[in-house]
């Protein structure tokens, strides 16, 4: 018997309970991580409806795969990220040709003057295209660290890198991205 409420319990305890079939425990994990997983999927897909559908799939598949998850220093959020990447792979396989960032929804268009919108749309297209053109792990580190503003330590654990390697990867990723969009954004 634990004294803590489910929302205060550690991931490890909630995972253990969820493995025993406790849906409420998994619900707590869902509420804890739905935001970063959705944000990640939205950043990759650029489409809120698809991001919503896949977010749900990620958590359902994560629940099904709980038996294969052993914590041992590997955060549950990193496990979810791995599942999310696999869900994306399956999604892209079904949805060829890949659109990804190229279809990014516009979040602010209607509030800007037309000419400004046109320029901005052009810049967004250039940036999206550049993001598609750089290596995948460059894109991943930019999405996680820059777009989602996740701490380097979390990005490192999600990408299975040391923090030092993550910083170097980010540096190279931004240099590569800058090379692609030089003067255009």
């Amino acid at each position: 018997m634990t004294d803590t409420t489910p929302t205060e319990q550690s991931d490890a305890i909630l995972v253990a309970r969820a493995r025993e079939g406790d849906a409420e425990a998994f619900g707590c994990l869902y509420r804890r991580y739905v935001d970063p997983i959705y944000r990640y999927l939205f950043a990759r897909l650029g489409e809120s409806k698809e991001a919503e559908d896949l977010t749900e799939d990620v958590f359902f598949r994560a629940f099904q795969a709980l038996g294969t998850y052993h914590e041992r220093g590997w955060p549950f959020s990193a496990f979810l990220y791995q599942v999310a990447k696999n869900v994306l792979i399956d999604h892209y396989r079904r949805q060829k040709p890949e659109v990804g960032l190229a279809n990014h929804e516009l979040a602010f268009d209607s509030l800007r003057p037309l000419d400004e919108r046109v320029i901005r749309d052009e810049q967004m297209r250039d940036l999206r295209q550049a993001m598609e053109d750089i290596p995948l792990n460059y894109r991943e580190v930019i999405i996680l660290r820059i777009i989602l503003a996740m701490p380097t330590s979390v990005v490192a654990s999600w990408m299975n890198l040391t923090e030092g390697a993550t910083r170097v990867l980010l540096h190279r990723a931004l240099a590569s991205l800058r090379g692609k969009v030089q003067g255009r954004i």
Partner: protein
Amino acid sequence: MISKDRLQADILDRAFQRMLEENAAIADSTKGEEGAVSDVRPLLETAGRARELLPARGPSPEFIAASEARLLRRIKASAPRSTKQDFRLAGKARWGWLRSAALAAAITLIVLSAAGLSVTSASARALPGDALYPVKQGLEVISLALTVSASGDVALLADFADARVEEIEQLAAQNRNADLVAGLENYDKTLSHLDGALDQLPPDSIQLDDIRARITRHTQVLLSLRDRLPEQAQSALDQAVEHSQQSVDRIWSLQKDQGTEEIPPTLNKESTTDAGKGDDASSPTEKKPDTDPHTDTPELTETSEPTNTLEPSQTPKASKTPKPSKTPKPAEPTKTPKPAEPTKTPKPAKPTKTPKPD
């Protein structure tokens, strides 16, 4: 000695953090930093523009609430299969592999005492529809339960997939048309389990090349049977062929997704994807010491853009004849016990696909 590359990376990270936390301008974010600050500022500009042009968006509260309710319903509906009956995966997680092994050993004893060694051995040659086929399947699931690593699971499941294809060939040779459909469905299910097990492998695993080659061969064998199979088996054949091609594509994607060109092995931690999947798998906690990360930098060689050598489109795609109208596949008709299905929770939204384990 800290390399310039590493020094800039550290400055960039600190300055970007200041931009986030203090809403600092680029010039302010690098104040107090020594070194090649001028080289870092353009990158901070790019980072800032990327944040402006591709803003992060969170889920709506309505979606969160509705999605959670749907998710919990799906979980409750699937719980009896995934958490209670799945002795292999969930059992490993709950009790550890020793307990699974003990359970497997107990089942083996029961099988052996009931049927005898000769019968057990004879079951190895059994085909779908044969009386001994369930024994063969039972022995397979026992051997699967005894594996202690993701790579062991993959190796075994790949062997099972090979066996399913051989069974299909034998059934076709014997004109056992009624059993052919079951054989093809067995292959499809085995491939689903293999797909799930592959998720647990590190994307750079050398096993992936081998598995990809073997599944490609399955596709070729299955397609070579097309003209010999009766109409009733064509739909199942199409499903099996399509699944095998998707599995090959999936492996390509997994390998491509790794994109390890820029980070040398010395900077990668032990495989995450394999972590915790088996008791002999590398644990993420066993990450490489970062005692002097700066010495890592010289190994970080800039590479050219990713090549297309791993494009899924390069997967050998056998030409397909027009498919007969496919009827949705009923969710797992269980004519015989299907022991090797640890996580076959049905996906309600996709009735035509065999549920895949993750």
